[in-house]
């Protein structure tokens, strides 16, 4: 039973998301209190009526006591988390035990982050945001809410299943050759060509990256682009996943599949599942994750000879229609949050997505956000017009052309090679190197990147953990370990070891300077229970931590690392600690990872 609600101070519902169980619960309660003969009121009215007393009490407490509610817990362990951002009150509820307080608080912060990415500076004004989130036109409102709901569901799914969204750091695929080729392609053939094109209408490609599911295969930024913040990158991955869900749980090809694709037999192609369009998707027709993917068997040559767009255009969202996103830009003058960009998201291959981020010349930023938006709207229109007729696009590098070229490029790489890469991002035979080690996650918090063996939990795939229930059990342990260590980190503890059942867990956070010299452990700030969740997606805790720590290390570039390990409990702790030490030094060795 889950719910997330955004309300204005006057108890007006600005957005809500509920699961079916919560919806039924509300309807039953409302039905019971309704008089006979009257039909059930609209769901929005019911939820608004039921939550109104809580919302009003919140503002009363703030006004009269200067104190605000942060959470409620009931005897049957339903959790309510409340957080006020300016004039908007967010309430997240869980009644099925699947989410803890930290999860709900995180969900609230992520929702706020997604709204910021979608609406930009408008979020700074309560009035304007209210207008944006609750358009007068009910159809428009329904569309917008559906979109936000589906983003929230995508996020929740990723947080529950994807390690990089568990620890909130970007996972890179370690496949040096492929990666280099891709970067070269992105740079030479894509970004440079697009940016030198006369017809780009002032739009400038800043960043281009290729995702394999949620993992980063290659990333290229143009020379004058500022760094893309980890927080923004993670938010964009959620959006890309929302457009083209990858069904990572079931789609990971087993070894047999890889073999078959490398043979001479018929190639297997995935057709991306129809994703809801931004405009007329509805939550209920959203493809159920974990459903069997559709396979199409055909001759690859024939397939490729045809305009690959034909097959790829089956999903309704038109990749050439950019989405406006507001991202952080850091320049010499400082950091500008929520600067408008356009995001082009193109599915290249099942589970493989190309994302382009473009930006309008920055001098416009100085004028006003609204001018920006206007210019952007025009640009969008021109781009979409430009796509209509082929005559208009002659001699011009269109999105279609880009994709055509990309497809050829990918074909050149060979499907087997591409399909291999989403097996195990960490190509370590760690079971032999580290007997007794079950799992680890290593995160470089300065770059926001993580390395971990994959945790495949489906029957078809076999990871080093085995498969099925055992892997599922270990996964649940890893998830709870991360939440536990975060709680201790929040209270200032940067080293934690736990003997839990048959397992021994370790967590270490430490600082290094650029040359790899280990810096002395310093004080970690102690935060209140209701502080922003520790992570990098919604609120970059580590950036603040680094800034805090660097105060005593002026003139030095400080890096921050985390290591989590899961060992069998029977292994002596000395051995476990030796493993941890080896992992900590080995994983970030330049020879292992050419991208770092």
């Amino acid at each position, binding site marked *: 039973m889950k719910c997330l609600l955004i309300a204005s101070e006057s108890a007006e519902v600005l957005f809500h998301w509920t699961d079916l169980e919560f919806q039924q*619960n509300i309807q039953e*309660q409302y039905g019971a209190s309704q008089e006979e003969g009257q039909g059930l009121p609209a769901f929005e009215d019911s939820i608004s009526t*039921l*939550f109104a*007393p*809580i919302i009003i*009490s919140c503002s*009363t*407490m703030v006004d009269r*006591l200067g*104190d*605000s*509610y*942060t*959470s*409620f*817990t*009931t*005897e*049957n362990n*339903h959790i*309510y988390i409340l957080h006020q951002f300016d004039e908007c009150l967010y309430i997240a509820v869980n*009644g099925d035990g699947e989410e803890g307080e930290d999860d709900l608080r995180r969900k609230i912060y992520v929702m706020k982050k997604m709204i910021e990415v979608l609406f930009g500076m408008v979020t700074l004004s309560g009035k304007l945001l209210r207008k944006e989130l609750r358009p007068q036109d009910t159809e428009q409102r329904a569309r917008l809410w559906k979109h936000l709901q589906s983003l929230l569901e995508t996020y929740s799914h990723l947080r529950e299943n994807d390690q990089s969204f568990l620890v909130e750091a970007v996972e890179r695929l370690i496949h040096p050759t492929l990666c280099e080729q891709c970067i070269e392609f992105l740079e030479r053939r894509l970004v440079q060509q697009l940016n030198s094109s006369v017809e780009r209408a002032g739009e400038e490609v800043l960043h281009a990256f290729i995702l394999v599911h949620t993992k980063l295969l290659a990333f290229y930024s143009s020379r004058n682009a500022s760094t893309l913040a980890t927080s923004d990158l993670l938010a964009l991955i959620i959006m890309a996943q929302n457009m083209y869900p990858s069904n990572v749980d079931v789609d990971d090809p087993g070894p047999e599949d890889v073999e078959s694709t490398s043979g001479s037999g018929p190639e297997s192609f995935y057709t991306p599942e129809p994703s809801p369009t931004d405009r007329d998707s509805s939550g209920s027709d959203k493809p159920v994750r974990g459903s069997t993917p559709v396979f199409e068997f055909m001759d690859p040559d024939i397939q490729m000879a045809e305009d690959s767009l034909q097959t790829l255009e089956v999903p309704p969202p038109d990749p050439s229609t950019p989405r406006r996103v507001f991202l952080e830009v850091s320049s010499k003058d400082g950091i500008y949050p929520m600067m408008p960009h356009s995001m082009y998201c193109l599915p290249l291959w099942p589970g493989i997505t190309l994302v382009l981020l473009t930006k309008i010349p920055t001098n416009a930023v100085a004028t006003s956000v609204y001018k920006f938006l206007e210019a952007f709207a025009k640009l969008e229109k021109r781009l979409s017009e430009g796509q209509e007729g082929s005559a208009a696009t002659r001699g011009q590098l269109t999105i279609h052309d880009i994709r055509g070229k990309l497809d050829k490029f990918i074909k050149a790489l060979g499907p087997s090679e591409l399909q291999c890469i989403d097996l195990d991002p960490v190509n370590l035979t760690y079971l032999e190197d580290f007997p007794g080690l079950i799992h680890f996650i290593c995160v470089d918090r300065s770059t926001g990147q993580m390395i971990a063996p994959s945790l495949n939990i489906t029957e078809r795939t076999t990871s080093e953990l085995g498969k099925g229930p055992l892997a599922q059990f270990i996964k649940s342990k890893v998830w709870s370990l991360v939440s*536990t260590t975060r*709680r*201790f980190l929040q*209270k*200032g*503890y*940067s*080293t*934690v*070891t*736990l*003997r*839990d*059942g048959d397992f021994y867990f*370790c967590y*270490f*956070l*430490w*600082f290094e300077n650029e040359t790899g010299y*280990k*810096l*002395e*452990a*310093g*004080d*970690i700030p102690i935060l*209140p*229970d*209701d502080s922003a969740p520790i992570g990098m997606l919604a609120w970059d805790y580590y950036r603040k931590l680094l800034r805090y720590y660097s105060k005593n290390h002026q003139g030095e570039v400080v890096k921050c690392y985390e290591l989590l390990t899961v060992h069998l409990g029977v292994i002596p*702790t*000395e051995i476990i*600690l*030796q493993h*941890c*030490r080896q*992992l*900590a030094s080995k994983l970030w060795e330049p020879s292992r990872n050419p991208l770092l």
Partner: protein
Amino acid sequence: MSELIRRCNYFFLYDGSKVKGEGDPTREGICYFYPEETPLDKQDLLCGQLAGVGRCVSELSSSPVRVLRLSRNKYAIRMRDDFFWALGCSVEVPTISVCELLDQLIDLFCFYNGSVRQSYQLNSRETLAARWAQYLSHLQSGSSELHRIFSCLRTIDSTNVDPLLLLKAALILQACQRCPLVLAGCILFRGRVVSTQMSPELTMKVMVHESETYTKAQKPNGPSTSSSFGAAVSSTTVFLTMSELQYLQSTPVDKDFSSHSTPRKDAPLKKTRLSRTLSDMASTESDSSDPGPSQSPQKVSCSPCLSESDNSVFSPSPLQSTADPVNPSPQSPEPPFSNGKHSREAEDEVLEESYYQSFHSNGGGDSQIHSKGDGSVSHLNGGGGDACGTVFDFRGVESGSEKTHDDKVVGDGGVGCGSAQGHKEEVRHPPPCSGSFDNPEESPLIPMTLYLHRVKGLVLALLVEPHFLSDTASMEEVYHSSLASLNGLEAHLRTISPGAPGAPGAYIFAHFDCTQSTLTTNLSGRPGGAPEHPFVRATSLLHSHFCNTETLQEAIIRSAGAAVYGTRSVAQETYFQQHGGSPRNSGIPNHQDSAFSLPSKARHRLLKHGVNLL
């Protein structure tokens, strides 16, 4: 009060049934509000808002609210019927401890007053406000932050006490139990437990009354201590829950079972043992299987509430009626009044019973803490504490005269107001069971009597059947059999120096015995100043984490300031911090890091404190 670090910022009891209509002022519903000096409009605001939000949330979730958190305060909540309790603490206090504190407070109230609804029907708000204040101040006073984290019993420092004295205390209690009307007892010295046969929860409740009479006795111009004898023997009515009673009446062999089969609803499952005495520690196994002299079937037969059928509860059951002599179904799952048919009848009886109590109490009904007996002890022969060498001085209470009898007193009438008439009342209303109908699911409360015999700083507290007070022979027997030993014990305990304040050693530890709810620590126990201590902070966090994670066995956590090791088993939790010797560390995994040698150091160092971590 103001000097104490106030653990609790707010506490209130709000009766929603008084504020049903639109125009009813919130004030009508406020039964008690602490701190009492809080401006009325703020009281209104807090009660109205929290109770309102609480009701709204419980409706949405179909379950009462347990915790309401704000950014500056967190409130443990209890909602029963129309009553709404809220206990607000600062956000640093672990949530689990705030909830425990509220439960303790409500349990305390019910223990001394019975059902809350009835108490408010029978007494004025002012009277009951004084009691809430008393219980609240008792729970907040005197204990260290570590004691609060574990909500543990305050015990005498056993490392300073000759084990023979603990044995002696245990023997006194066992001797008292020879009287079939005595359920269980405990011996307290200056507000600390020496030995107890009751569960930690029950012992804690008994201690409130003890400390109250102790404070009164200490005050030079205290109300009831004008004579040099003081009120050595006193009693008060207390109310036990069905499970508490069943536990007390079951044989020691069964106790482990019954504590499992009838755990308190929201309390964590705790294994409890009969007696925290030296004799138990010496030979645990043999003792627990030995029924012992105190467990005669006769004793069991005196408890009408435990008879097999519900009907017998309502039928006259004379004192000597023999129920099942072996085991009167202590695990009967259904409380006597669980069915509606009987509840009205029971309620009537409860009222009568209560009037009966107030009619007969010396204090005139307002205070149930009254002295019924007036026996006292004059002196001790030689102070040797050996039973045969004592001279008794027992004053018959019924006479009220100052005349003292040397040697034994022949009791003729009953003792005190219990008397013959009381005995008849007992027969007419044999089952002294009063239902607490605050929540039909909760077991009813059964009135019992708490008997206290004070010898200076030492107190023998016994939970007895209500008609014990009217049974002169039994009362005298208990009194006389324990008197000399109590005197001796008191004399010995008094001479024990309070132990050198734990030298700031190379390490700090805290060892919590979950079974007995006792804490051993070498951290200075002074109240105040403790919560910000790194060890206390880490212990508090780890304790919460242990409570929430069943499978967790041990943990090491390190901040820049301190590395603390915690380990737990079913029966105990131990926390250990090594001082100094922490060379520069970077936090990177390193097997030479001193933090990881904490487990072996703890095992080694704590052996001499009697803590075995192997």
